[in-house]
């Protein structure tokens, strides 16, 4: 509940009325926290971006929550991608060697197969996810919300504190 309150206040403070584009950008940005290992230095940069850029912070949280299980499930795929890039692509070795011996960049843990594989996966996923999420939020606000409003269960939920989070997606 404390977390919920914190979340609510954070959403209120930052952005309680996001456009579909802002929510979609938040989801796409937040997915990096779920897909890549959380305690990786690059996530500090993306957290800063999520705070400073005018994206929906609730969307960021939602993206994170949605993609955490996917991140766990896809670890073998990330490992394969990372191994392919780090170990089996000799043309990239000079790049990795430069990075590995460069200050700051070396701290990014890019040389771990899971970190690199998941990050590359997220980069490739970012734009499709953004457009898909923007379309989805728009569709929802236009078509689904009106119907949901008439359902009694929805009205009960609406009255609860959870609704504050949900408010983010209403038209």
């Amino acid at each position: 509940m404390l977390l919920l309150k914190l979340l609510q206040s954070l959403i209120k403070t930052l952005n309680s009325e996001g456009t579909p584009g802002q929510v979609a950008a938040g989801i796409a940005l937040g997915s990096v926290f779920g897909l890549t290992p959380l305690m990786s230095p690059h996530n500090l940069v993306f957290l800063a971006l999520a705070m400073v850029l005018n994206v929906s912070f609730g969307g960021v949280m939602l993206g994170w929550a949605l993609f955490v299980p996917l991140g766990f499930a896809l670890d073998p795929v990330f490992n394969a991608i990372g191994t392919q890039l780090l170990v089996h692509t000799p043309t990239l070795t000079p790049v990795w060697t430069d990075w590995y011996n460069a200050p700051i960049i070396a701290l990014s843990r890019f040389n771990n197969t899971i970190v690199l594989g998941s990050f590359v996966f997220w980069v490739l996923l970012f734009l499709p996810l953004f457009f898909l999420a923007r379309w989805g939020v728009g569709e929802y606000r236009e078509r689904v919300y009106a119907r949901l409003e008439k359902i009694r269960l929805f009205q009960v939920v609406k009255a609860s504190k959870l609704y504050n989070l949900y408010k983010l997606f209403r038209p």
Partner: protein
Amino acid sequence: MKRVRLKGLIPLVLFLVALVVAIWLLLDPLVKWGVEDVGTELVGAKVDLASADVHLFKGSVTLNGLQVTDPAHPMTNLVQAEQIVADVSLAPLLEKKLVLDTVAVRRVRFGTLRKTSGALANPGPNTGAVARAVSDWADRMHLPSLSLAGLGQVVNVAAISPDSLTTLRQAKQIAESADSAKTAWLESLTALNPKPHIDSAAALAERLKGKNIGTLGLAGARDAAQSVKRTIDSLTALDGKLKALQADVTQGVGRLQSGVTDGLAQARQADYAYARSLLKLPAIAAPDIGPALFGRMVTDKIAPVLYWLNLAQKYMPPGLAERLDPGPKRMRASGTDARFPREHAYPTFLLRFGEASLSLGGQGAAAGNYDAKVTGVTSAPTLYGKPTTFTVSRTAAAVGPTRVRAAGMLDHVRRPLRDSVDVSADGITLPTVQIGALGATLDLGKGSSQLMLARMGDSLSARWVWHSNDVRWTRQGGSVAGGAGVAQAAQEMLWNTISGLKDVQVEARLSGPIASPRLAIGTNVADAVSQSLQRQLGDKVKQAEAQVRARVDSLVASQVSAARSAVDSVRSTAQQAVAEQRAKLDQAKKDLESRLKSLVGGLPIGG
């Protein structure tokens, strides 16, 4: 719509401040946890650290109360250090590399007792892998045993099973090989089918007998000469094939004969040894007795040295090739960390210079203060370009005129790895050895120990000498298991022999591949035991051995004879058949050449 949200800067700054404060507060526990976690993984037993004190901007790290558990003895510490102070270079930290300019270790002690067990409840698959490998190595070392239990027992030659005799198996194999080879060679000879060619040549020679230009005319002589030459060419080609077959047969017969003479002789020696081992007769030659008496002590002593060398090999590999290591532990999969070393860059870990003061407490002969220095410990020796060196010397002795000196060099800059260790110590307490076969315990007391070890690539050469003129022999209770009266008498006799020895020297030599080195142990104890056994039991052992050999000979005689006959048969049949055909062919060729000369009479006709 604004793309940047300036009010978001406030929580961001707050978050970053909180993060810095958290790191500042948690850095010491994190370093403590890191040292314990990595150390435990490395050693294969608990590594405990009382506290860590990190002054990041001063580049100083102090570790207090380090205890490293001995993996083989979880209630004992392998090493314990009161304080470790390290000067850390800050710039390499930005490249995630740890470069320690100096490390000072204070009050190092070995073999201290632990309050709690340092064994791991759930060791990981890689935890202590090096220790396990070395332990397996020591277990794999074949050490002969010295047992008196077989003495005085009836020599039961019926226990020698024919199925276990190598000679029988090899003799059977040779006989089968000889038969199949003979069949194959005769088939090859049949396939070449030289007879029609030889007969045809003989017929041609016969037809031309007494013919010349005068009788055949110029054209007839020319045609005949051409026909003779074609036949000679055909015979020459066929002879080439027969010659190759003959070489094949000669070579094959040679191999079979070598199998009969050398192979079966070696197999029979192995069978003698096997049959002898069934009788549990004691080895009575000194070179066999030495490893039986002191082999376990030597492997136990050399194993820790190999453990450290293997550890160095694993974590200090030569070359600049990229390396793959397991990634960090986390809830997510660990993945693999790839390392990309580059020339003239920092290695992932480097200790330029380390110094330790060691104290061995008590009033023992080894008690006193020691000074240890180490240089160039690094994860990438090729980058550092210099070998790792270390020295240990005694600075103050508590009692007695003891001398301790150790020096070593680990050159992993390039392949092959070159490691050398030289340790010598006088007046130290030497190990106590249980010698079950002799019913005795040998306490070597105080003496000297000298180790010289060199390793190049996968080859090892080591010499370790222990010498003491202050030994104590203690008789163990009990008697020879399963031994008869003769065995008891032999043990008594050996006890009388060894208990008089006050000066003992053991010299162990290990050489050859590290995975399976040859171990030779020379010691005056083995010499004395051997002489005593020879004197008292030599005749009995020789008699028993003669019985065993006779039994083996009788079991293998018929099969060996069969193998010999089979090889003789190949020689007489296949080899002879090919030789005969070649002789006939040669004769036919000579006849034709003679006819040719008569035909042409030295004139250039016939092409």
